[in-house]
């Protein structure tokens, strides 16, 4: 079911159709009514186009939420790891014990599409005010620092958020 079908309630039905046969609509528009003193404006947009635009917008937001959710997960893992590190510094864990505990948190940097990483960096920069360095970003997205350097150096502007990106505090 499309957004439009889910959102708009039928108000009027003209004519009748055979309920056993599928209905093929030849005219499917969302109509917009605007009123102003002495004026009524009626405009419309194809439902399919509006539906596609809404879906695209939703998918974009979902992707951003996924990126930020992944970052939150990484911070939580870091926090847990640093509890072990703190215990090691305080002498509650021997170096051997700490290395054993730390091994559970060790990861191999993953391979990622450069465009995806650039997009993720754009999201991170847009919604946070922290001063992330390349090594920070590498850890948050589990890639190598060199890959972050190369990505930011080489990719076109559009892939890191374009001119609409909020990059200042």
């Amino acid at each position: 079911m499309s957004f439009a079908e889910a959102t708009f309630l039928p108000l009027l039905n003209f004519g009748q159709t055979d309920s056993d046969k599928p209905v093929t609509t030849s005219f499917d528009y969302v109509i917009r009514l605007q009123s102003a003193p002495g004026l009524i404006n009626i405009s419309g947009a194809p439902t399919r186009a509006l539906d596609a635009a809404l879906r695209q917008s939703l998918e974009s937001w979902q992707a951003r939420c996924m990126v930020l959710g992944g970052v939150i997960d990484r911070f939580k893992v870091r926090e847990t790891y640093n509890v072990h590190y703190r215990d090691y510094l305080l002498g509650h864990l021997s170096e051997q014990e700490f290395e054993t505990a730390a091994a559970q948190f060790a990861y191999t940097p993953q391979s990622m599409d450069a465009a995806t990483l650039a997009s993720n960096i754009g999201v991170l920069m847009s919604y946070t005010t922290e001063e992330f360095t390349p090594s920070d970003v590498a850890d948050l997205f589990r890639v190598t620092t060199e890959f972050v350097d190369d990505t930011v150096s080489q990719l076109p502007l559009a892939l890191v958020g374009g001119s609409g990106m909020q990059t200042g505090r």
Partner: protein
Amino acid sequence: MTLFVSLGESVEAIVLRLMSRAPIFTDTPVISPTLGVVTYPFRMTQNSEAEIETPLAPRQWRVCQQSHLDPGDMLLGVRIAGHSTKPLSALQLIQGTGAHKACQSRCKDFGYARLEIPLRNVLNRIVGSATNAPAEAAPAIERRGAARGRIARKGK
């Protein structure tokens, strides 16, 4: 002793002395594709130093070809990040500059450190350059060993 202050400069050593005015941060261990072992990343974020105390033997880079390897070579900058193959030794609180205290630790076994700047600064340059010029390509980050002429060399 040589002091390096340019972005992207790096040092590698058996024993690396780390000092920072702010606490030294650690991230979760990484299985380094370059070294093939578990490494322990660290980050320093304020008035940071990384100095070679015990150089590699033989004097051969392991992470970055442009790394400085001589005894006494030191990185000096706001932000320094790197990793060691053993957990950092216990942090010591020492006298920094003037009335300020500083944190000091050492990478044992093997340590790598490099100078960094916030990524936001780089991205602001990209956006700034896009608004001033139609060029679509991002300006290159100054990479390791680049801009040799800007390396400040001071004998101590």
